[in-house]
């Protein structure tokens, strides 16, 4: 991508400017604020005693030895929590998660007790002195088993009421299905009957985690009838609402403050440690900080493992006429936002294709594992892994070129996607052609000789941004005319502060550098649904634009009132001086944005307006496979994505590159190994993430020329888009190289080598 850096500080034309991040200096000098660094006077440290069994009834918890350790302030269990929060269950989708284990434990690592001490080492040591006895219960770990298992993780479903589309689940018993989303278009069985070919495959993805380098951290500071929480959170507004509910306080008595985040990727959404620290601080009457170790992060939240059974009917011409998708999401022991992942991803489970008959069943399942939530794609990467592997398998079986097969079936501009919503501003065809062209598709390709084989593959994808969601922003021109922006979007590295400042600058004809973006503080920053799902640039971007336009109109009105000629462009500070006789006054504008939305019909999922915008992406990969070891080297990784008009091309490029490299880890080697519910590689020593040596030799990152016509200045979000296609593009390249098809992630050497040996009718043994 061409990244043109315009001269800094230039007014006007702020959109499309590759401005370095506003907080760059703080970050390179080590002085950026993170909650990780925060200490409050009198603060205690809380360390967590965790369950060692996956499913069990708590018979006893013995804290007596821990209490005797010098320096221990107090040891807390759920009985203590209930004295300050009588009903201590929380969660965005379901009120199913207790602040500490209550009668039962449901996964290994579930918090059971907390030691408070001034010295974190003392607290840690005292945790070792706690013992608990459990009556172990049978556990269920696999999402398919959970569908029919008689082991129930919860006795009864408890939807939170936050999301209207979950209310119908209230009171359901004897089930692990937390949500079943259905989409029905046409008659899929009729389509299969008419098809010339029917293909059915099953794909799986593994359990992986976000592993943000700033581990989960929250500090509670509860006073009488008011509580402040300092937290590394992607959604301060939701945290406030949930803490207010738990404590029975109005929202204006709950203050959530968020510094920069040392990474989020979806892990720090909704509510994590915040309810715990609020309760601990209420009990201790002192500020309490809970800061997890990296190991503990493996027991907080992960990505959803997923099993996807996909069946397609194709006619004689290679047109897909029917597709049935059964998707099983392994949500772990508590729902977190899993039911929403299940539903919202379900809209596009059939892929970026124009298919007459579509049938989607998407199930959120409880299991006895670490809870699962959103991870940079809200389920889409798991779906694309499956449907784009499936696409190539069909093309191969039909002896059709994979690009030609996609061309024949792709959703064209204006066509109706499976939900019935037209696909606009979603340049799928252009993306496919761009990837094909970059790969020199159709030209002869050297597949290598000897043991190392070469191959190439591609994939395309679509996502409907989650909807409907609301953002509010306030812009304040201070007495000297310098602007302060109040918005709840959390800058966790995606560069939102910089992008929002650019939008203000564009409207007010000011350099973006002159805009101060206030750190998130719910006492002053207005409501925002959350920094998630690539929604912020579009939704908050609009709110910021509207706020800035209101300010602009008020400045013009003030100038008129003061007798300035139209278009005179007198600086705001001078207008204020003229008006108030001194450096004084403010002009405040606010903006609220909530897009139109038509809820999908229950039972069919049909709607003509499922989302305000589509996210579309494609990837191409070239690989070398060492057929003697199974080692796969990705030599070239191409991502072409649509983000409308890039507000900041350099930051967009970094987002594309960073997102695909993160997904590259999930594709090639990352995996949580689990034995009896216990994660056996819960550390960075044993759970490997991409390092600088893993980066493919050639990476090409392109934001395709595009405009999101209803977006702020033609823009939309891009945080997740480049995660979608990396996995299947590489798996498709592996098959092109050496003829083996891998249906389960990751694509590590062992998996590939086993597949090669199986193909040679010489399979390896189990160990």
């Amino acid at each position, binding site marked *: 991508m061409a990244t043109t850096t315009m001269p800094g500080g230039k007014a006007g034309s702020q959109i499309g400017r590759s401005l*370095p991040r506003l907080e760059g200096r703080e970050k*390179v*000098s080590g002085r950026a604020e993170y909650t990780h660094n925060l200490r409050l006077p009198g603060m205690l440290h809380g360390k967590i005693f965790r369950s060692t069994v996956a499913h069990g009834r708590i018979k006893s918890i013995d804290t007596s030895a821990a209490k005797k350790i010098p320096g221990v302030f107090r040891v807390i269990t759920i009985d203590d929590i209930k004295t300050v929060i009588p009903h201590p269950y929380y969660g965005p989708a379901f009120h199913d998660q207790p602040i500490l284990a209550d009668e039962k434990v449901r996964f290994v690592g579930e918090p059971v007790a907390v030691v408070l001490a001034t010295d974190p080492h003392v607290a840690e040591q005292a945790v070792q002195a706690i013992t608990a006895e459990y009556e172990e219960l049978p556990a269920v770990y696999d999402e398919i088993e959970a569908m029919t298992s008689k082991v129930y993780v919860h006795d009864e479903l408890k939807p939170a009421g936050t999301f209207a589309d979950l209310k119908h689940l209230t009171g359901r018993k004897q089930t692990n299905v937390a949500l079943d989303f259905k989409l029905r278009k046409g008659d899929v069985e009729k389509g299969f009957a008419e098809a010339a070919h029917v293909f059915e495959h099953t794909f799986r993805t593994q359990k992986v985690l976000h592993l943000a*380098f700033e581990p989960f951290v929250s500090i509670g500071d509860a006073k009488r009838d008011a509580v402040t929480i300092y937290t590394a959170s992607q959604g301060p507004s939701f945290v406030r609402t949930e803490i207010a509910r738990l404590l029975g306080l109005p929202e204006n008595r709950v203050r959530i403050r968020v510094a920069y985040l040392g990474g989020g*990727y979806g892990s720090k959404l909704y509510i994590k440690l915040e309810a715990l620290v609020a309760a601990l601080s209420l009990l201790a009457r002192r500020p309490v900080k809970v800061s997890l170790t990296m190991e503990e992060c493996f027991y907080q939240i992960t990505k959803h493992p997923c099993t996807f059974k996909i069946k397609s009917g194709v006619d004689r011409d290679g047109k897909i006429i029917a597709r049935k998708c059964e998707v099983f999401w392994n949500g772990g022991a508590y729902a977190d936002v899993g039911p929403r992942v299940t539903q919202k991803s379900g809209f596009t489970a059939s892929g970026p294709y124009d298919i007459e008959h579509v049938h989607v069943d998407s199930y959120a399942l409880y299991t006895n594992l670490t809870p699962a939530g959103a991870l940079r794609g809200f389920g889409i990467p798991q779906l694309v892994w499956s449907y784009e592997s499936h696409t190539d398998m069909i093309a191969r079986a039909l002896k059709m070129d994979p690009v030609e097969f996609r061309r024949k079936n792709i959703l064209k501009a204006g066509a109706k996607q499976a939900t019935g919503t037209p696909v606009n501003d979603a340049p799928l065809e252009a993306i496919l052609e761009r990837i094909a062209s970059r790969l020199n598709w159709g030209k002869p390709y050297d597949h290598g000789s000897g043991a190392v084989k070469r191959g190439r593959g591609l994939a395309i994808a679509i996502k409907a941004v989650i909807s409907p969601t609301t953002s509010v922003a306030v812009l304040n021109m201070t007495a000297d005319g310098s602007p302060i922006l109040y918005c709840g979007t959390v800058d966790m590295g995606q560069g939102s502060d910089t992008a929002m400042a650019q939008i203000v600058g564009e409207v007010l004809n000011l350099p973006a550098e002159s805009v101060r973006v206030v750190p998130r503080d719910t006492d002053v920053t207005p409501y925002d649904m959350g920094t998630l799902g690539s929604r912020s640039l579009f939704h908050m971007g609009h709110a910021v634009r509207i706020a800035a336009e209101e300010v602009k109109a008020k400045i013009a009105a003030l100038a008129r009132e003061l007798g300035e000629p139209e278009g005179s462009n007198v600086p705001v500070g001078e207008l204020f001086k003229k008006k108030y006789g001194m450096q004084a006054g403010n002009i405040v504008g606010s903006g609220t944005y909530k897009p139109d939305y038509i809820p999908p019909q229950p039972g069919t999922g049909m709607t003509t307006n499922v989302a305000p915008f589509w996210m579309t992406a494609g990837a191409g990969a070239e690989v070398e496979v060492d057929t003697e070891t199974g080692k796969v080297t990705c030599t070239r990784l191409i991502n072409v994505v649509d983000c409308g008009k890039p507000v900041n091309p350099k930051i967009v490029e970094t987002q594309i590159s960073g997102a695909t490299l993160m997904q590259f880890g999930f594709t090639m080697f990352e995996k949580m190994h689990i034995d009896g519910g216990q994660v056996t590689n819960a550390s*960075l020593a044993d759970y490997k993430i991409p390092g*600088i040596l893993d*980066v493919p030799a050639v990476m090409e990152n392109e934001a395709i020329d595009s405009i999101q016509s209803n977006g702020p200045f033609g823009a939309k979000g891009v945080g997740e888009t480049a995660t979608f296609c990396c996995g299947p593009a590489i798996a498709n390249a592996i098959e092109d190289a050496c003829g083996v098809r891998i249906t389960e992630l990751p694509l590590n050497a062992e998996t590939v080598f086993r597949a090669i040996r199986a193909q040679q009718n010489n399979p390896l043994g189990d160990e």
Partner: protein
Amino acid sequence: MAARTISFTLNGEPVSAEIAPHHTILEVIRNEFALYGARESCGQGLCGCCTVIVNGTAVSGCLYLAAFADGAAVTTVESLDASGALDPVQEAFIEQGAFQCGFCTPGFILMTKQLLDRHPDPDDDTIKHWLSGNLCRCAAYPEIIQAVKSAARKRAAARS
């Protein structure tokens, strides 16, 4: 546990601190001297977020016991812009957009300085070798490599 007092220089200033045997240098510089540029992430010396310089060599502050720093010269990222101006490596990281969340960035910057002190004009393989002990979950690696090269050019220009 017996406390003891250690004396060392911290970013050029002589300092002393009362420590327990299990305290790491990372805890001491954060808790006693409010220097937060080095931070603990993996806690195993694998990610590089806790990098500090002891007697001229980069160490993992989360594993380096404070007792061993007695009499040593300890340098942190906060020393780099003590003059008020950023170090060329810091400038290059900003200009190349070589970070997103910034949590790992001080570690990368300190390691890059070590690299450029020994290899003023490193090639890609040398850069990757030297920075393979620092991890970035936002995966800004391509930009980091560009930033290292840009910093090398800045330093060369400053010398000539």
